[in-house]
């Protein structure tokens, strides 16, 4: 079945079964491989994308439920001023180790800062609780969110 999706500001057509998760539609059909597969049950956050500005787990979201909602992936988030700032903070603080989870972390952090421009530590804990970093770069993730929101990075 052909679905027309709005991904990173472009209309893209994917011919997939309706139950195909958005993650696999993006990765295998559309070649957008920034969102990552980690668990397939919405428990790790590696697949996080924005659907109309809200952070969602694309591994459990059927493509048929997306409609014409605006899908933004890590490849497109730099087109947004907040997203760009978050990516820059991640680079400045050399956050990543393996880097596999970081697209999802950046998408969750960007959604947080768009909703709460100066989050508290508790806000960060809550908003980032769905994203696992197996390398445990949490210290730098927190610092990067603080930096991107213009707050002191001290913990």
């Amino acid at each position, binding site marked *: 079945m052909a679905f027309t999706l709005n991904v990173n500001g472009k209309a893209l057509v994917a011919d*997939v*079964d309706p139950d*195909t*998760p958005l993650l*696999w539609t993006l*990765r*295998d*059909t559309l*070649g957008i*491989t*920034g*969102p*990552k*597969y*980690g*668990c*397939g*049950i919405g*428990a*790790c956050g*590696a697949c996080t994308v924005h659907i109309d500005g809200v952070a969602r787990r694309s591994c459990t979201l059927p493509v048929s439920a997306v409609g014409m909602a605006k899908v933004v*992936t*890590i*490849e497109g988030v*730099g087109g947004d001023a907040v997203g760009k700032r978050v*990516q820059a903070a*991640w*680079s*400045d603080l*050399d956050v*990543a*180790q*393996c*880097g*596999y*989870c*970081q*697209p999802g972390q*950046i998408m969750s952090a960007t959604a947080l800062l768009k909703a709460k421009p100066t989050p508290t530590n508790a806000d*960060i*804990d*809550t908003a*980032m*609780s769905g*994203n*696992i*970093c*197996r*390398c*445990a*770069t*949490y*210290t*730098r*993730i*927190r610092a990067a969110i603080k930096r991107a929101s213009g707050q002191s990075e001290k*913990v």
Partner: protein
Amino acid sequence: MTLQPTGASRREFMSVTAAAGGGLLLGFAIAAKAEAAETAGAAALNAFVRIDPQGVVTIMSKNPEIGQGIKTSLPMLIAEELDVAWENVRIEQADSEPKVFGLQIAGGSMATPLNWESLRRVGAVARAMMVQAAAQAWNCPPGECTTSPGQVIHKASNRTASYGSLAGLCAGLAQPDPKTVPLKDPKDYRIIGKPMAQYDTPRIVTGAPLFGIDVRLPGMLYATYVKAPVFGAKVASADLAAAQAVKGVRKAFVVEGGTNLAGLLPGVAVVADSWWAARKGRDKLNIQWADHPTQSQSSAAFARRAAELGAAAPQKSLRNDGDVAKALAGASRTVEAAYAYPFIAHAPMEPQNCTAAFKDGKMEIWAPTQNPDTGRGMIAQLLGLKPEDITIHITRSGGGFGRRLNADYMVEAAWIAREAGAPVKLLWTREDDMQHDFYRPGGFHFLKGGVDAAGHVVAWQDHFVTYGQGDAVASSAAMGAGEFPAQFVANCSIGQSTMPLGVPTGPLRAPGSNALAFVMQSFIDELAHAAGADPVAFRLTLLGTEGMVGKPPAAYNAERMRGVLKAVAEQSGWAGRGKLPARTGMGVAFHFSHLGYFAEVAQVTVANSGKVKVDRIWIAADVGRQIVNPSGGLNQVQGAAIDGLSAALYQKITIENGAVKQRNFGDYPLLRMADAPPVDVRFVMTDYPPTGLGEPALPPVIPAVTNAIFAATGKRIRSLPIDPSLLKA
């Protein structure tokens, strides 16, 4: 400068030899002309370095990148001695070519100690050739020339030449002797010791396709592979037709497989146009598995058997110094305790995957691997190919932690691709990954110890019950006879008994140490408590007054350990811990592994519910005289400590009926943001060669936390993961 392609392959021009132990390659030849055929005008100075006319320097990174930052830190060594500006350096991941690059493994935190000198010499040789080329062009003695980043300078005649303009002139120049080429004085370092962001950071933060899972080839199909929950069980029946009826599925087939748990195990492959289609086909297979002897094994039965074995004499003695029985009898206080830790899984964020293409008798592999050449050997043997007919491209790995030292998924991908007759990307589900790991083995220790009236440890006895068959201990399930505090206690006996195991085990970040430090440093804490001593002072006494104690493989520099222990006590405000509120406590532990000396303090607060919150961790680390990349190094130490916390608080794999019970992150939780404490790290600089940072920070954090729990609650944690129900107020 334009070099004419010769059509010859790069390798034919390289006369490189790998020295024993992976230290490398100090006899390479110039390959400029050959290299030009491949790289559009850049001149290769050796296997690692090429420079284009604009002065862009490309450095090959030989080792697999799994998040330890090696793709940045090893090229830093070359760039420093080559004397170039870091911003002009481009880094390329090398393929698996041991004849060219030597040992290419991500394991044992060995990359820094093995390459620290040899890769600096690679850079220094290339720099010396730049100098020679300039001196020849200027008709002056090379000794009159100096370099500044990216250029050769002849002060007397006020001339300079960029490396880009010189690189093409190096062909035919005599190669300086790498063994004697001068190296920089460390005070002149411009790159080593400076915090450098990971080279791939710009691509990581924009989602570029860097990982194995991101590989896409023309005509590529996608595969899933189903193995028995019981390790090694064969396929009795499978409904292949039902799987093949699913839209998009090209082929479903049974793989006979073998009995080597690290090799190709029996299973069913489903190959499809997309991974989701393969996944849906898989759900229709209705596989029946044959019975297998391992299905009689369970974690509960192992614990019962371990208790029986622990109560009897050890099957084997690993060490017997002095007279432990007599020393225990004469001790003023004795302590007896049983410790246990579970199997745990690596669970790297990127599930196992591999892409393989088989054509005209040659296999091409793209693998997120820590150990590519082992994969090549296994594929060659299994498929009857010559090793030289197998090309292995090393992709970035989404975490490794030791899991990708094994090559089971590479063998599976190669087999399936050949059967499918098309390039195939095999991707495991998270559940496949959780249930088909090479687990950190569990273990059991039955300990007795004694202290005298002065607070000295006078007796230490450990009966270690582990997995194996007789003397053959399962992978990463062994304990060395020199495990601390052996060699520091005059009356010390270590015995071992084994239980047969049908579950594959393997190295996990700081193998052995990640469990043994918990046991030894906890029991030392128990003895300190029995002696009524300060846990830091007690440990300093135990470490004695000597410098080097023992010989390899049990050589232990007690002076360095005392150094980090004193440092962490000062850094953490240990002396002031009496002022902490109720149910808050500090604990200390130290451990030597992977050539690094680490002492750590944890502060925890235990809620009345029993929930443990780690407030802060302090780490003092001695890895020698130089931190190659302070940014990456700090990240490794902080990450390893929090990784250790995750193991302490949550991680546990349970065997039931020969299979792993846990399936995904719901029942195998990993630590998340809210649980991650600040980690203060202090590097204690000593005049020893630099060593690695990927692993040694992990082991001491676990006992530091459990000892802190004791300080906070008076309750001793003797089994992992920490059970909050034991800690209720």
